[in-house]
């Protein structure tokens, strides 16, 4: 029971972090049809900027400054890069963001170096929020959940309850009509791309503290975020939320379990030992398989339900 509750809490908090990342990706995709390969790179930039800024002004101001910086960077990328490439079509856009991911990662290496930077948990968030049975739950995880939920709420309010949200939705479904009505659709695109990147930056500020801030952090989280966006359904914010939690919880539980096929067969009386053919397959523990699970889910999803959990379109 204790294992279950703690793993669930950890899984949900990891899932919420994934959601912070995938929500931006999903927003950008649903607006512009661009799969932003560099999304995780913006997440990394968020972490590094927060680290550098935080050294001067502290963690909490950096929590606001870093997303703004990343958002501005994203807007500039859209204005001066993506818009140029747009006329060559979607594949060129995909290639552009793919190259951008390389470029950002290498720039980070040149500026901050190859090794991890000492981006530490601020004193206010260090320590335990509460203790359940005998395991304690860190404050940082709680803060992570809080920020993610606040972000979800504000994005939802922005999109559904404000005028700018209305324009965004209009530009999303009927870009030509919105343009004809006098709205500057390219500027809306720039805003959405910048906004999506800012969300990734925000995730980076927190993810950087919770995990390690190093140049490979983008590559380690990038594919997972894609899995979330695809499994949830391309362009569906609610789907991304569901898929983030699903994958977060699934990953957390899988890592903690040491069940294997050999053990299960052993329990029902079939002995599997090193002489058995394909022994390396039988002896695999779930915790060893854990890294594969999201991708397996992705492939299965794309085969059997290409539009994702809550998506509306297949391509």
């Amino acid at each position: 029971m204790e294992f279950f509750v703690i793993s669930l809490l950890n899984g949900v908090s990891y899932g919420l972090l994934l959601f912070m990342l995938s929500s931006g990706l999903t927003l950008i995709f649903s607006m512009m049809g661009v799969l932003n390969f560099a999304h995780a790179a913006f997440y990394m930039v968020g972490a590094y900027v927060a680290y550098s800024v935080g050294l001067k002004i502290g963690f909490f101001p950096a929590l606001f400054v870093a997303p703004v910086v990343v958002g501005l960077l994203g807007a500039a990328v859209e204005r001066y890069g993506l818009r140029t490439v747009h006329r060559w079509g979607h594949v060129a856009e995909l290639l552009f963001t793919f190259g951008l991911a390389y470029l950002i990662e290498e720039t980070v290496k040149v500026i901050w170096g190859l090794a991890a930077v000492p981006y530490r948990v601020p004193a206010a968030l260090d320590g335990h929020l509460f203790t359940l049975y005998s395991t304690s739950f860190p404050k940082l995880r709680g803060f992570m959940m809080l920020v993610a939920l606040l972000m979800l709420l504000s994005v939802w309010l922005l999109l559904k309850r404000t005028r700018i949200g209305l324009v965004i939705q209009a530009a999303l479904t009927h870009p030509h009509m919105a343009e004809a009505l006098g709205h500057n659709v390219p500027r809306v695109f720039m805003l959405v791309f910048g906004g999506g990147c800012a969300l990734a930056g925000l995730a980076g500020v927190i993810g950087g503290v919770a995990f390690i801030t190093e140049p490979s952090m983008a590559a380690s989280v990038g594919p997972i975020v894609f899995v979330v966006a695809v499994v949830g359904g391309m362009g569906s914010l609610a789907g991304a939320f569901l898929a983030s939690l699903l994958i977060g919880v699934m990953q957390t539980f899988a890592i903690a379990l040491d069940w294997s096929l050999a053990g299960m067969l052993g329990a029902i009386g079939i002995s599997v030992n090193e002489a058995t053919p394909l022994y390396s397959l039988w002896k695999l523990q779930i915790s060893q398989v854990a890294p594969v699970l999201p991708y397996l889910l992705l492939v299965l999803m794309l085969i059997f339900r290409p539009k994702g959990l809550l998506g509306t379109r297949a391509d």
Partner: protein
Amino acid sequence: MQTTARTLRYQPLDLARWVIWGSTALLMAALPVFFTQGFAITLMSQMGVAIIFTLSYNMLLGQSGMLSFGHAVYSGLGAYFAVHTLNLASKGQLWMPVPLLPLVGGLAGAVFGVLFGYVTTKRAGTTFAMITLGIGELVFSCSLMFPDFFGGEGGVTTNRVFGKPFLGITFGPAVQVYYLIAFWCLVSMALMYAWSHTPLGRMANAVRDNPERAEFVGYDTQKVRWYTLIISSFFAGIAGALGVINFEIVTAENVSAVRSGGVLLAAFIGGVGFFFGPIIGACVFVYFVVALSDHTKAWLLYLGMFFMLMVMFAPGGIASLIMMQVQLIARKRFGRIWRQYLAAGASGLLVLAAVILTVEMTYKVSVDSSGGTLMKLFGVEFDAAAAGPWAVAIGLWIVGGWLFNAARKRVAHTYGEIQAEFLQGRP
């Protein structure tokens, strides 16, 4: 009068084709005579492997419109099967001469092409790209799960020299390996070129350009994509096995996203629209990887910048730039534009110098400053922390940027003028 149902066949002796392929073969045979240093031989061997791999990738991207993010899966798995075969052969448990090893890799690649391709080619476009990404990550994660087969962190090592030498060939010296790679490279190039003229190759182009219409004419687009992917993964497997012979080691990096991304970069830089584009791309890419990485830590940054510039301003790659000039030369307009190219090139060099100076000084100051901030660039020694060099860099940015922009505009203007003349039908 007699009516005949004769099929018209247009089969002139294609002299140009014989000349091109013949001179390619001659060039490949002659290169080691001129470049005898060990470094050059290794570089050329790697280029040969990369050419096969990149061409096989372009079967997907350029000729069938499939953007794959997991092509290294086929070359990597081909390499793993080849390395295990080679190890068994050197123990005497299996008969497999080294020159035929690429076939093992190719077949392994093709088998996985049949398996994974069935899944991935069900869809095209962005979804295809996503599934290939998923499959790529899947296989890479598996490589850590099965250390028996994938060799864990250290990879699988082998030795290409075993048994009695055949006609004095042991494949010990690098030159012998180069000639083996060159042979396979030439054969693969010819076969892949021939493939692009088969009905399947032509249908792949049709499926790329207009899948609905191809379907309407009666072709199963999924099957066309699947067969293409199988053939492509066969050649990828050949490249993987040749890599095994060249390096005598296979690690999980061979199936990783880094490798898949690299081949995409290479193919795109070279140009996916022409058959010879990926060949150029592979050579440029290997040169970046091998030669530039000796000089600077930030080589990937330069490669990334180069790629981005190509995506933004020359989506047809180097090949398309070359073909544009060929057209100008053939129609006698090159004389009007070459001075402006020269001006653009010279001012472009200033911008390049600005980029290099900025990147290298940033690197020195922020990362590599433990041994002092003195550095040497283009033969000049200076202090990267001093204000002087930074002022030079900013000056280069401003002057170079301004000059380049002006030169670029003039090139674009003249080029547009010439194209307008072509449109008006002047010779």
